[in-house]
């Protein structure tokens, strides 16, 4: 889960805020551009935001004996490209920091960078790199890796702030043990949920998705995919 309020030294907190801010600003512009260019996709944008909202509210028990929650950022990253998720993810993180004392304002920059920047980009990269794989596999990988990468990043941020006697690597493995291992089953679950939600989206919003270029990596198949989706 996110880094708690006050648990990054001021210098780190400020640095991560500075790093995350341009992504969020760019993401906000990306949202208004998307709405302008694809007004028919506004509903889908709502779906992507709502999906992260639900998933990041559900804490699940995991194999390590602790619990964590999924992120849901992979879906929007695949449909709208990652910058949009930088803005949507920030809204979710602000909500949790202000109302739930989960995460925090001083750690918002770091948490935005892990959940709303690194996660979506890793998920999107996986989706694109697996261009030749079956569509469900690509979605699964995008969702699961966006989830996992978020917490690998969180562990990295904490290891940088608290290297301890064993140095960065030692601290990193400790924090990875806390965050990343816990996250593995959750990432798989999120990947499967993603496959289900995308099935629904494909059959109900096929034309919108193809207008956004979600299927465009394989132009020869794109048409059939849409047709398939519409007839399913």
């Amino acid at each position: 889960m996110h880094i708690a309020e006050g648990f990054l030294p001021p210098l780190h907190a400020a640095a991560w805020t500075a790093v995350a801010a341009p992504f969020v600003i760019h993401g906000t512009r990306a949202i208004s551009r998307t709405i302008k260019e694809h007004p028919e996709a506004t509903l889908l944008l709502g779906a992507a935001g709502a999906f992260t909202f639900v998933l990041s509210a559900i804490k699940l028990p995991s194999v390590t004996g602790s619990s964590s929650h999924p992120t849901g950022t992979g879906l929007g990253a695949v449909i709208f490209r990652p910058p949009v998720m930088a803005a949507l993810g920030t809204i979710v993180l602000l909500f949790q920091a202000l109302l739930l004392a989960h995460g925090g304002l001083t750690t918002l920059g770091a948490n935005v960078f892990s959940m709303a920047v690194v996660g979506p980009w890793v998920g999107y990269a996986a989706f694109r790199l697996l261009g030749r794989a079956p569509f469900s596999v690509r979605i699964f990988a995008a969702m699961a890796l966006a989830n996992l990468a978020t917490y690998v990043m969180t562990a990295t941020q904490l290891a940088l702030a608290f290297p301890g006697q064993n140095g960065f690597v030692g601290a990193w493995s400790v924090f990875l043990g806390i965050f990343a291992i816990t996250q593995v089953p959750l990432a798989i679950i999120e990947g499967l949920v993603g496959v289900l939600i995308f099935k629904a989206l494909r059959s109900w919003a096929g034309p919108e998705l193809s207008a956004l270029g979600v299927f465009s990596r394989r132009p020869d198949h794109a048409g059939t995919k849409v047709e398939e989706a519409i007839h399913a």
Partner: protein
Amino acid sequence: MRKHASTLAILLAIVALFTVAMVLGTRQSTGDGETFIGTDSAATTHIEENHPGYTPWFQPIFEPSSGEVESGLFALQAALGAGALGFVLGTMRERRRQRRSAADDSSRPLSDPEPACDAAEPQSRG
């Protein structure tokens, strides 16, 4: 039918994974204190134990007064998200149905409310 079978299989896999994670996790956490604490608390505990010199320099502005209130607020977050998601999915399903029936009715001129979708429309009937 095949489509529903795979959906069902995925749902079962999710439940199975959840159960396995919970059972393995319960065994794992037979140590002290609470089971299934959040990874965020696990991390802060680790920092407090290993870096006694560090004091958090900022406190949450508002903190839910009890675990019950907190889980209620988390439930509210999930409900808002799920409600919005359900609304969007329902609207898209209905929109697609109308699109289809508009395309079915070839005698009438198309009155498509979303001209931007037209590029992808030709395949909507085949």
